[in-house]
């Protein structure tokens, strides 16, 4: 262990040079460390995003085929105006698709409208009154003319499976949401506004009037009250009824309001795909199950794709930093070490003349380097926080902008509300790399350098994307 003592004596005697060496190595290590942290955080975040960001496959009527059919018939029978015929989705098809690989839960949606009987609907002050258009697809072309009511009935399998609830656009504030056990019941969940205006609470019943068939009345029971966020209200156009008039019920109730023909059908069925990367596979397999002339499967993995894209650019950047700094650093350190050894050739000579073993001479130099590196690493650990902070926040804002533009572009093709939610979701995912940086980093670093940082994501408050998302 004699060489250890020599190493220590040398490092201690040449303090100035040792400090310089420590600073140079610390600078190099700092960048490597920061890069590595950002990279591993990006990898983590990507995996997290893959697991958390949902992708869906939706089964609905094949509109394109229906339009084509309509045009064809209008050409042949030029005198008559032909109508768009959309086939409601059969639930038997849905159960077949649900059995496919990578398909998790699914939500059946059946939307219709009814008229208020025992209560008054909420009217928006700027709105056009009660009689807007509502009700999605599912109007059977043909004899039955359907007039629209002032209350929209959203039939679902479970409210928790709808995008409004899963994205926290709507929240249950009293009672409970619709679940699959509400099948074949007249249970409904109404909006807070509607409830307070009519003095309705959980357990009360209300009467609605059918808009089809015999136009009879149906008694329904309130099991829960939800609150729709203002953003979903603002997305509603001027022609639609106030969003507070949307009543959630089991799809079976919506189907029975539409008429007996609609039993065991749906407007659309949305399947959650457990592995977002497998969406196209699921679609392919699903298309084999259904009749493609009547029905179509559409996919939505846009949030997954945007997250994936921004994460891979993030990761790529971090990768480049790590490599660049590591290579440059190695070259610099190698040059320094070569110079050091040249300078010490007399010392090596003396050691050899004393009969010191070669490996012990090498070991002495290594020990000296390790001593320097240990101190440098400690400094880099502290300094890396700053560098990681700066780099991270810069990359974050870059990535966030990319996400925003990509998702709004995607949104134009798909429908506005969905895209807005996607952006928000993707932005929340993006704060992940930095949150995991904080989890990797020992807490003691925070004690050494008490900075005003975001509680959630380790970044300084001002540059925290997560904070911006929240506000």
């Amino acid at each position, binding site marked *: 262990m*004699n060489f250890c*003592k*020599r190493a220590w*004596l*040398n490092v201690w*005697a*040449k303090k100035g040079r040792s400090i310089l060496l420590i600073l140079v190595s610390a600078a190099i290590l700092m960048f490597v460390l920061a890069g590595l942290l950002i990279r591993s955080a990006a990898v983590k975040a990507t995996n997290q995003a893959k697991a958390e960001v949902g992708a869906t496959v939706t089964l609905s009527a094949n509109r394109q085929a229906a339009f084509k059919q309509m045009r064809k018939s209008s050409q042949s029978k030029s005198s008559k105006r032909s109508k768009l015929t959309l086939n409601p989705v059969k639930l038997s098809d849905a159960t077949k698709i649900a059995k496919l690989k990578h398909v998790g839960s699914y939500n059946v949606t059946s939307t219709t409208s009814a008229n208020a009987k025992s209560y008054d609907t909420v009217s928006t002050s700027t709105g056009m009154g009660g009689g807007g258009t509502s009700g999605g697809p599912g109007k059977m072309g043909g004899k039955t003319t359907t007039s629209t009511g002032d209350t929209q009935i959203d039939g679902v399998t479970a409210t928790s499976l709808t995008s409004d609830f899963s994205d926290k656009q709507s929240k249950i504030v009293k009672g409970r949401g619709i679940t699959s056990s509400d099948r074949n019941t007249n249970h409904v969940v109404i909006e807070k506004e509607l409830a307070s205006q009519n003095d309705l609470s959980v357990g009360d019943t209300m009467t609605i009037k059918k808009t089809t068939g015999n136009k009879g009345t149906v008694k329904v029971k309130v099991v829960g009250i939800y609150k729709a966020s203002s953003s979903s209200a603002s997305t509603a156009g001027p022609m639609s009824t106030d969003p507070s008039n949307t009543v959630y019920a089991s799809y079976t109730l919506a189907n029975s309001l539409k008429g007996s023909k609609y039993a065991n059908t749906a407007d659309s069925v949305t399947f959650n795909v457990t592995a977002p990367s497998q969406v196209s596979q699921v679609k392919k397999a699903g298309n084999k199950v259904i009749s493609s002339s009547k029905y179509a499967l559409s996919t939505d993995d846009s949030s997954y794709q945007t997250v994936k894209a921004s994460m891979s650019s993030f990761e790529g950047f971090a990768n480049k930093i790590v490599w660049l700094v590591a290579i440059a650093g190695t070259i610099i350190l190698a040059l320094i070490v070569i110079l050091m050894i040249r300078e010490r050739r*007399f*010392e090596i*000579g*003396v*050691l*050899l*003349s*004393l*009969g*010191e*073993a070669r490996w012990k001479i090498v070991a002495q130099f290594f020990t000296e380097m390790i001593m320097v590196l240990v101190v440098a690493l400690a400094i880099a650990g502290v300094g890396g926080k700053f560098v990681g902070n700066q780099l991270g926040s810069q990359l974050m804002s870059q990535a966030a902008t990319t996400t925003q533009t990509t998702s709004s572009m995607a949104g134009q093709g798909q429908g506005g509300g969905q895209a807005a939610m996607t952006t928000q979701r993707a932005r929340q995912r993006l704060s992940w790399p930095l949150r995991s940086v904080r989890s990797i980093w020992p807490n003691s670093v925070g004690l050494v350098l008490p900075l005003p940082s975001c509680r959630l994501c380790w970044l300084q408050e001002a540059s925290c994307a997560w904070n911006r998302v929240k506000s």
Partner: protein
Amino acid sequence: MLKTQDLSYWYQNANQPLFKNVNLEFEEGESYAILGHSGTGKTTFLSLIAGLDTPKDGAILLQDQSLKKIGLTNYRRKHVAIVFQAYNLFTYMSPLNNLLTAMAITESKHAGDREYATQVLRDLGIGEDLITRNVQHLSGGQQQRVAIARTMVCDARLVVADEPTGNLDEDNTQAVITQFQSIAHDQKKCVVIVTHELDVAAMCDHQYRLENRQFTKLA
């Protein structure tokens, strides 16, 4: 004690050997001076008997055992102590630590004995105030005395020195040679000194001159 047997050496790029078939004998308790013009191969000869290089032909025997058999690293550690003209010491240590380090490496019987090392340094005129100071802050003569002290605290029976007084003034030269004489006569070691200075050589017990690829003993 140390014998050379038909020792020859030449550098790869040279067209003739520096010395050829050299047969010399060095005894314990005696001091030897090697004289010769510059470039004749004195340092080369010394590096051979110090175990820093291997002969091209012939052999070097320590108590009838060839250096090859003893092993050069082992030979340097146990049997020989070297003093160069300069750069003898670890620049990042004090005189005392230089001695202690050498004692530890050579596994001297005095290894770790600070008292002994201090005493030897004091005998050579390196006082209390100097022994814990960095050696770079010592004069050339003082540094050379530390190097000599190092050969005294190690167990090696053979001490070789290459122009140990080359950088020193007359007074220091006198002191250093006296020390070498005491190493030979009091410690009963074998001392081999290469020098240019005739008066230095004259103070040694035996003198050799390297000339025309041969060593000749001077009367």
